[in-house]
């Protein structure tokens, strides 16, 4: 076995030793297995939601049941997903806490490994730690409150600001958008609610950590972020998941609304363990001169289907997606981006990088759409795929629908393997083959990494090194 073969064989084989998260289960309330109107009713009643939200949930469940499964993804993989074998809601022990000291010890231990307290000490604004289906820890720094920024878990948001939630909930991702958006709308639980008042700049990134920790738990996070006129916010979501024995589903819905001149950046790195189905709908609406950026890293999960989208609804709006996907053995990363140009002089840019290793498969699936009257629009899409191993697979499925002549649309994609010439060159400079390989991969993802906050960049580099392990001796 060469070192390359060893490296390939080791991918995702030692998740337990590497990450080691697996705590005993402990719940206060759990709905019965499976999905039904009774379960939806139970969730809504338990959360003491207003009637309108309960009705939204029930309607969404009907939509979910009526919609067919997506056909563009590997059907044999999707067939492993059994909706009747999942729990749709669990209430963790402990009430919502504001102070780190009050977070239960066992949960804290897990977050220690994720580096939350470390980050907290440094410069984090607020930590919204989602444990299971509920937010258990939440702190907001005083100056944020003074600025008038609302940063809550979405359940508290619904209680404290029902007006705003009612107005914007489902306005960007309606329940009927796709099967999984409907599922999320029916059983959503947890997630963040952020409102930034006009002309307010949130200087430090807002972060939410969450993870799944039990067999067969679905996590249906629902996040709603609204940046009012001229506001700026950077929201970071990161996830790491422990080891399970059976498949798990994560199906979130993230809605961003950037009002006139606002700027939202949403960064996420998902590293679910490789038995998680990660089927997420992320979409933003950008009004006049607003900017929305999705920075999206997909490292883990068994199957990811995620196509961050920006609806450019106001003149001069700009949308950007910068994404990276790493597909190791048995993984399918079906990621992409969508840019819908509805207004004149809107611009968009998509940079997508993917690495397929061993039997991994990564796909870019994207859409750039320009409607009649969206004059002066520009869009640029670039996809780069790197293949490591003769069995690796890479697909590119970009769609461009252009119904306006006064526009400029460009798409390019390249697929290649780790080049022997590059390896040879680096080795001739004294690097080992493994070091050279890691260096090339790091160089490949560099444009993505440099967009991340420093501690995330460090974490990502470490993740890549782990995934390439044995390659680094």
């Amino acid at each position: 076995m060469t070192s390359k073969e060893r490296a390939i064989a080791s991918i995702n084989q030692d998740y337990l030793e590497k990450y080691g998260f697996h705590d005993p289960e402990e719940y206060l309330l759990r709905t019965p297995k499976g999905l039904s109107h009774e379960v939806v009713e139970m969730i809504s009643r338990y959360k003491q939601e207003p009637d309108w939200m309960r009705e939204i949930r029930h309607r969404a469940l009907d939509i979910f049941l009526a919609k067919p499964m997506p056909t563009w993804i590997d059907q044999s993989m999707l067939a492993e997903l059994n909706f009747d074998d999942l729990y749709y809601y669990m209430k963790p022990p402990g009430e919502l806490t504001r102070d780190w000291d009050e977070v239960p010890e066992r949960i804290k231990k897990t977050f220690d490994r994720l580096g939350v307290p470390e980050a907290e000490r440094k410069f984090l604004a607020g930590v919204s730690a989602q444990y299971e289906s509920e937010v258990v820890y939440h702190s907001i720094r005083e100056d944020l409150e003074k600025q008038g920024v609302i940063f809550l878990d979405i359940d508290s948001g619904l209680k404290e600001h029902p007006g705003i939630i009612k107005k914007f909930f489902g306005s960007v991702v309606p329940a009927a958008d796709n099967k999984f958006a409907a599922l999320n709308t029916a059983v959503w639980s947890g997630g963040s609610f952020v409102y930034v008042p006009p002309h307010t700049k949130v200087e430090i990134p807002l972060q939410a950590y969450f993870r799944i920790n039990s067999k067969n738990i679905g996590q249906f996070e629902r996040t709603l972020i609204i940046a009012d006129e001229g506001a700026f916010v950077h929201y970071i979501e990161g996830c790491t998941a422990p080891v399970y024995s059976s498949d798990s589903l994560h199906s979130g819905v993230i809605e961003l609304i950037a009002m006139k001149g606002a700027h939202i950046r949403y960064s996420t790195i998902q590293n679910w363990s490789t038995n998680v189905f990660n089927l997420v709908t992320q979409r933003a609406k950008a009004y006049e001169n607003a900017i929305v950026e999705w920075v999206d890293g997909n490292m883990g999960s068994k199957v990811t289907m995620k196509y961050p989208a920006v609806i450019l609804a106001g003149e001069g709006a700009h949308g950007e997606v910068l994404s990276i996907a790493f597909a190791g053995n048995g993984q399918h990363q079906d990621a992409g981006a969508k840019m819908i140009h509805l207004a004149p002089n809107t611009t968009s840019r998509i940079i997508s990088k993917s690495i397929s290793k061993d039997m991994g498969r990564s796909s870019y699936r994207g859409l750039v759409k320009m409607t009649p009257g969206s004059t002066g629009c520009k869009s640029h899409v670039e996809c780069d795929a790197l293949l490591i191993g003769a069995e690796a697979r890479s697909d590119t499925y970009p769609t461009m629908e252009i119904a306006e002549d006064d526009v400029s649309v460009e798409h390019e994609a390249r697929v290649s393997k780790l080049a022997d010439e590059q390896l040879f060159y680096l080795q001739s400079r004294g690097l080992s083959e493994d070091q050279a390989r890691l260096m090339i991969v790091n160089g490949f993802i560099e444009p993505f990494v440099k967009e991340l906050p420093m501690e995330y960049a460090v974490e990502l580099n470490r993740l890549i090194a782990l995934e390439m392990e044995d390659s680094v001796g």
Partner: protein
Amino acid sequence: MAEAAVTMPAASPVFDEAFLRSLSAQLGEREPLLSQRLDALRLLAQLPPPDRSSHLWRYTNPARLLPPQPVQAITGSGPIEGPELPEGGAVVVVASGRPPRVTISDAAAAAGLEIVPLTAEADAAERFGRKVDGTHGVFEALNAAGWTSGLLVRVPKDAVVPGPVHIVTMAGPGWSAPRLVVEAGINAALTVVDDHKGGGEGAYVSAVTETSLDPGANIRHVILQQLDAGTAAHLTARTGVGRDASLTTVLASFGGSVVKMDLGAILEGSGASSEIVGFVLGEARQHMDHHTVHEHVAPHTRSNIDFKVALTGRARSAYTGNIRIAKDAPGTEAYQENRNLLLSGTCRADTIPELEIMTDDVSCSHGATVSPLDPEQVFYLESRGIPQARAKRLIVRGFVDPALSRIPAGLREPLEAIIADRIGRFLMTDEEAAKS
């Protein structure tokens, strides 16, 4: 454009068994061909009708490509004037329901070129479906059952045919389903011009061309789609490219009203290569939907696609290009470029260039652009003293040149005139168009 009905009726609404029996008798064909037709008819009843959820039909309603009433009989096209015999080549005029008219030059005959109607070929049944069988899709199955003309073009081992073989396929009124089989032996070389003409309002074409290249063969396959306005056409072409063989496909597609085309090459032998150079022009309410596929199944194969689309009026184009590289095809290089030029505010271009790559030892890329005429290019030409209208014509002419310049001399000149005329019309202002 409202396109309500998406699916077409299941089974075969286009014709029945009685029609196939009478068609077979009309063509005077041998028995195995009739049973082959009936097999295809049975298969057709089982095939799921195409619908918009499968992405190759996302932009075109299949019902628009089928006759609204079942076909009763093939009336055949009117009298046809054959084009000139190209030097060193051959000319064939194919019309529905009647034998083709074949003229082969002495030089081509001496080289070993054979052109025969499929109905006259003893083992015709076996020459069918090698590259496109009935399971390919509903339209291919329709052709396999109800083909109205069949032609076999064959060049033996080492034969080099000096001139092009110009095959003019005339679409008749109503339904026509021409079938063409081209076979090139080891190291043979040939240029085939597959020229689709005629048709008109109420004309429906469902054509299939199958080509195979033995090792070392070299074929230039020119496809001219200049059907009359009003025609609805579905054309499928597949070529198997053998070891070290080389295929060049040149496409000029600008006729018809609703056109769907599926072009592809399967690189089946090590060292095989394929190049597609094509352009599509669309004006008025033309609906153009083109698909190309390069399927690499053998190692060290190469492919390249240069596909241009220029649209004006309310024309609409969809282009889907797929490159597939199988696990057993290391050392492969594949490139694809699609450019779309939008010359009016009401036209629409959709493009989906796809890559599906199943092994790592590849070099692969694609690019696609959609844009109006570059004002800087127009300005540059104007600064050199060229009037604006002419400058624009020159730029569009340059846009389609890579394909046009690879059409064999003699055939190219008349086409150039047609294209120049078309481009002139493309760039007319509304007032000019009203006057003319």
